């Protein structure tokens, strides 16, 4: 299948220090790619660079179209939804308002209400908390809200930054199951950045290992999962 997202020679950083050095990766159409790495490897920087939140050099193509160097707001309109680290929920707005904002750039306003039902279908708990202030939701619920808000865009590509962070294992499992459903039922491609290697390896079909800003290993997850050397050196188990 053709690559939905193609990244070549991506370098990015903050101020005068570079964090990413010539990173290259691909996300297949309808595929789930995961980027693993320890703290400070540059995973969050990678996602920020892809969305245009920080300056970068190199090439990023979405369905062949060059998106590197464009503003975040424009990249979003191409159907790229980013669930940032820290969830990024609007804590002073209600759950419903958060979701409505997810659909802000959509032209088909009349279908947005349908999407509320669809999203509440994935996350029934959010329907209960519909009119509650987002800041009062639990950590797991906020992660669901962040994911739900991204889905309201009807994105072609979902960027997820450590969705398991700070959440109880059962909650994380639930979220990953939903992510699999979304990918299978709606064909949303995903680029998942994670520290929790086990779950990520189970979900993804392709893996990149990032170390101090460089891709050190890449391959299908079925291969990486079973490669003991890689597991021991890079994943610690």
């Amino acid at each position, binding site marked *: 299948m053709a690559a939905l997202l193609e990244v070549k020679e991506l370098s990015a950083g903050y101020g005068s220090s570079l964090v990413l050095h010539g990173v290259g990766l691909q996300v297949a159409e309808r595929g789930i790619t995961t980027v693993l790495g320890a703290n400070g490897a540059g995973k969050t920087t990678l996602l920020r660079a892809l*969305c245009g*939140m920080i300056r970068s050099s190199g090439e990023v193509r979405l369905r062949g179209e060059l998106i590197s160097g464009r*503003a*975040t*707001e424009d990249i*979003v*309109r191409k159907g790229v*939804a*980013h669930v*940032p680290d820290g969830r*990024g*929920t*609007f*804590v*002073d*707005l209600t759950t419903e*308002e958060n979701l*409505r*904002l*997810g659909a*802000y*750039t959509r032209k088909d306003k009349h279908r947005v209400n349908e999407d509320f039902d669809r999203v509440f279908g994935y996350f029934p708990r959010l329907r209960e908390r519909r009119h509650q202030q987002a800041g009062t939701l639990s950590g797991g619920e906020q992660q669901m809200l962040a994911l739900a*808000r991204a889905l309201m*865009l009807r994105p072609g590509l979902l960027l997820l930054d450590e969705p398991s962070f700070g959440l109880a294992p059962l909650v994380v499992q639930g979220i990953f199951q939903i992510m699999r459903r979304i990918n299978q039922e709606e064909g949303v491609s995903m680029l998942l950045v994670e520290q929790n290697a086990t779950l990520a390896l189970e979900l993804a079909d392709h893996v990149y290992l990032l170390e101090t800003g460089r891709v050190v290993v890449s391959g299908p997850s079925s291969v990486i999962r079973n490669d003991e050397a890689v597991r021991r050196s890079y994943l610690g188990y």
Partner: protein
Amino acid sequence: MEAFLHQVLSGLATGGIYASLALALVMIYQSTNHINFAQGEMAMFSTYLAWDMINHGMPYWWAFVCAVAISFVAGIVIERVIIRPVENAPVLSVVVVFIALLVIFNSVAGWIYTYTIKTFPSPFPQQPLFGNRFISSHELGAIGVTLAVLVVLYMFFRFTTLGLAMRAAAQNQVSSRLVGIRVGWMLALGWGLAASVGAIAGMLVAPIIYLEPNMMSGVLLYAFAAALVGGIDNPFGAVLGGFAVGVLENLVGAYVIGTELKLTVALVLIIGVLLVKPTGLFGKVFVTRV
């Protein structure tokens, strides 16, 4: 008793104007974390524009609407052209930019329209409603218009998508970009709205305190104090604060100490409140994380 009621009611009228201006200050503060110290002078300039149009024969409400529209556009332009370049400058440098705007508007108004005091017409009848002795028609009308503006703004922010986007942009710029909101334009829009509200406040207060280039300095100070007392990040607090300060000013002036020192006394009282509640009556108590 009669006099007391009169002081309270006309205090509510001027308080409404303080409330509008305080709201304008809070709107810009929420989206940019800056207080627009030039808000008063911009309002004064808008009022002069309206005066100019009325003097050239335009009917009052036409001039009113035009002045509000021109102020809206001017607010957007000022934000994009003058404020945007210093978005990331140190806070005090931005304060100086506001001071510069203040000084420029004041001086240009004085230059074009001179410093002689002018009268600004009121669209409301001269006779008080039902011949009452407590409140003039203009004061009543001012309260009415203020409340109308506040309700419209509330509905805009609460129920429209654009209002929601502006609220989002004010709270969290990064997340707003991630849902595709063009944050820069939201800020500009905020400025445009604030300038319009300021224009309305200016045109409501001018018949009471007469039109001259320095007319808004006292009003701005009261509005600033009102916004702080209400809690600088709380629009409702700002509005309540505005009304309260208006009544306070009148009562202090009438019963405590004559008109010369009333500004000082009112400010001292307000600061007293702030000492007890340093983030204002309805402001968020900040828990600082280390």
